[in-house]
């Protein structure tokens, strides 16, 4: 059975992880609480840190 569809699926997940980290890092770099900067890549509530 062809694995191409499943490889494309897995690659999409990997792409998503990289894109999220890029976006989160950019927000963290801004340091703005208004945008959700918390000091951690995977948290988004500045009031609960």
């Amino acid at each position, binding site marked *: 059975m062809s694995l191409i569809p499943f490889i494309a*699926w897995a690659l999409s997940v990997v792409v*998503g992880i990289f894109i*999220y980290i890029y976006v*989160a890092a950019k927000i963290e770099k*801004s340091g703005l609480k*208004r*945008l*959700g900067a918390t000091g951690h890549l995977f948290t988004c509530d500045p009031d609960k840190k």
Partner: protein
Amino acid sequence: MNIYLIVFIIYFAIMIISSIAGAKKVETMGDFTSGGGNMGLILGIGTSVATWLSVASVMGVPGNIYSRGVAAVFGWIAGWFLGTAIMPLIAHRVRRPAVPTRTFPEFIHVRYDPFERKSKIQIFVAVIELVGYFVFSFIQVQGFGIVLSTISGLNYNLCCVLFLVVLVFTSFGGFQSVARTDTVNAILILIGVIAGMVTVLHLTGGFSAIVDNFMTTTAPVVEGGEPLVAGVLGSPWGTFGFSAIMSTFLANSIGATVAPHWIARFMAPKNAKTAALQMFWVLIVLIPVFVPLVVIGMGGKMLMPSLPVGVTSDYMFPQLIVRFLNPVLGALALTAICAAAVSTANSMLLHCSTSLIYDIKRVIQDKVPSAEEDAKTTKQLRYCVLILGVLAVLGAIAKLSLLAAGFTYIYGAFGSTFFWVTWLGLFTKRMNKPAAWAAMISGLVSYLIITAGKISVFGIPTFFVTAGISLIFCLIFMFATKKPPVEAYESFTSDKVSESTLAVVRAIRKDA
């Protein structure tokens, strides 16, 4: 009373309770249209997961795998996952402004027509959105009607009317209500599809047996039909062919990133990071939902080599439930399909309603902003949901299209129309109003001509062709006309904006 009807009644009760909880949170028109721009991460994940999980995914995907092979995994599942993967980029920009817009047409108004009160471009986008989401809505009603009538033996039309009752309840409370019921629905879908997968694996003897059968079967999709070529279901492009499956993949991935209901999902979270993080988690949470759907689609071919005459592949999963699942597991799987239909249709109806009342009527009338006017608009939004729900049921009774294919047409049309106005609008300062008009009209017209005429342009995927035409017109107009004012792009491209930009956004929102 059979167990399926009991399950439906319990499901109905759960929906009413969560709808009422959500409706109580609605205090302003902003709460109704976009959750007030204050939504937390968990609700954001729940509503986004449930939005992906429509009848096109829960019924259409196993049906397509069953009838056309693993290529459907590429066209639909990998496509939707890539779309979700890209979405944090857009989500960040859309939720970046301190005063976010409430709807997709309003975003287009701010970005391309900031000084116009009665914006024609906002109304045009709202009309496209209204038509597209109305089609979406009745596809969902149709899916629900098929399932409930197949399983319970009730009349199809009656099932569609039952759906209307649930639908109106869940969308009457606006975005807050939809988000809460979506989250409950997402959990029910997960439980239901896992129940379906466990049963299929048990009955077939495991995944190896499923794969072996899938690679060798020649059984026609429908009894008495043409036999399949052995191995075609396991080939990379299945019975679709490269161009068709690539078009589907692009429409479902890149096209989906600019679908207005997704842009609206990005306006609801409390900040830009939450908007991006919710899509990251959606990507992870969707994996345990789609793996069972693949197993169900492939395993279905072993349990039911061919479907009865008159039954399309969209019916495959419901047929499997009726013929092979024990009543308790079958009832859980039924709930998953109902939940998928409700979770998507209610948000689609909400979009139809906001397009008509918030983005068309409110803009044309251009009344002086006030709390009374907002309350009146919220009331009209609720009635509009009811009326459109009735019309969607009538549309569903007409049974116009195959489920997953119907979705792809709309995603393809949205992608062709809105791709460049969204991406270039969010990521470049030079994109302006004439270019936006040119991109939308050329993209939409070329998509309609190519799709309706079934035209093949050198075998190139349709989305490439229409997006390419749209880009050419967009670039010509962008560089042939003057730059947009700073108020048009500042709030999306900068973290700190001027007072004049804030004033423009507030005026367009008609903040009381």
